[in-house]
């Protein structure tokens, strides 16, 4: 997956879990941190669930615990079985 494909997928995930905040995520990059997203913990896990569904993978919890930047999340997505239409 290219960076652009991952960013597009992240925007879709964010639109699912934080509808109405599309403008906040318009210029998002992989250098952004999870904290920059300003999501509560439940929404963050929902976003992860959406991404797992889209790439047809289950990310290990202990790897998720290490994620600080969206680039870390991208690495998990790239390391998974990719099944994006």
């Amino acid at each position: 997956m290219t960076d652009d494909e991952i960013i597009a997928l992240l925007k879709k995930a964010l639109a699912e879990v934080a509808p109405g905040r599309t403008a906040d995520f318009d210029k998002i990059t992989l250098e952004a941190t999870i904290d920059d997203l300003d999501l509560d913990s439940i929404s963050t896990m929902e976003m992860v669930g959406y991404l797992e569904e889209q790439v047809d993978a289950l990310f290990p919890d202990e790897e998720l615990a290490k994620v600080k930047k969206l680039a870390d999340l991208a690495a998990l997505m790239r390391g998974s079985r990719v099944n994006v239409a």
Partner: protein
Amino acid sequence: MGSTQEEVEVSYDVSNEFFRLWLDERMNYTCGIFDGTDNLEEAQVKKLEWISNAAKVTPEKRVLDIGCGWGANIEYMVTTRGVKDATGITLSRAQAEEIGARKLPGVEAHVISYADFQPEQKFDAVTSICMMEHISTPEQARKGEHISLYRDYFKKVWEWTNPGAHFGLQTILRNRVPRNRTDLRDIGWVTYKIFPGGLSLRLEDVIMAVNPHWEVMEIRTRREDYGKTTGEWLRRLRLNEAAIREKWGDEVFTDYERYLDTCVRGFDKHYQSLAQYSLRRID
């Protein structure tokens, strides 16, 4: 450290009569083993048998049961395995009262935390069924203190035992954080409302913490069995809905229905599991 007495009593002291309505006849409040049976009573006896075998319980051994609940395990060891000298510890006064009412020969039950327990004589075998969940709070785990707390527990049990001792252990496992809002909220609610101060373990926590005091001889997971156990508890709770609402109020019924329903989902979706261990003291 871990669950306080007040927190433990939130979990276990609603009323002995309340729990008697939906647990098995011996009042096991932990996972049964449904090998070759669909009957909860039989499944609970199979669990007790597994734990006693794991601890190598024999009649002449002095046995300790940590987190002894209402005494189902101690009663089994005394009446079925011929144990003549058994000690149970619990933080719940209602549970200790129930053990006293069972009038079991050679049995002592103490209301004391494992952290303060200082036995005068050592034990030859130890069992502990789903007590470790009260050793670390979620807050302590977030600060990274949980492994040290578990290791300190295993060290204490080592100090309380004679060389050659075996330890039959059972713990609930937390396998995977849910990814959807309903399940996240329900599991969080169970943690804080039904079992305040408690936290299920990760399998790797146990593997790390037993060292250098205990050797893992056997591990068996029982996720599906705990799903069946909690499903049967939920069925029995609902059968007694009218009586529970009348005697303990609507909130107790709805809380326990939500809790047990969450457990059934949790085991089905692999959020949680259960493990049984046979440990051997490293002498």
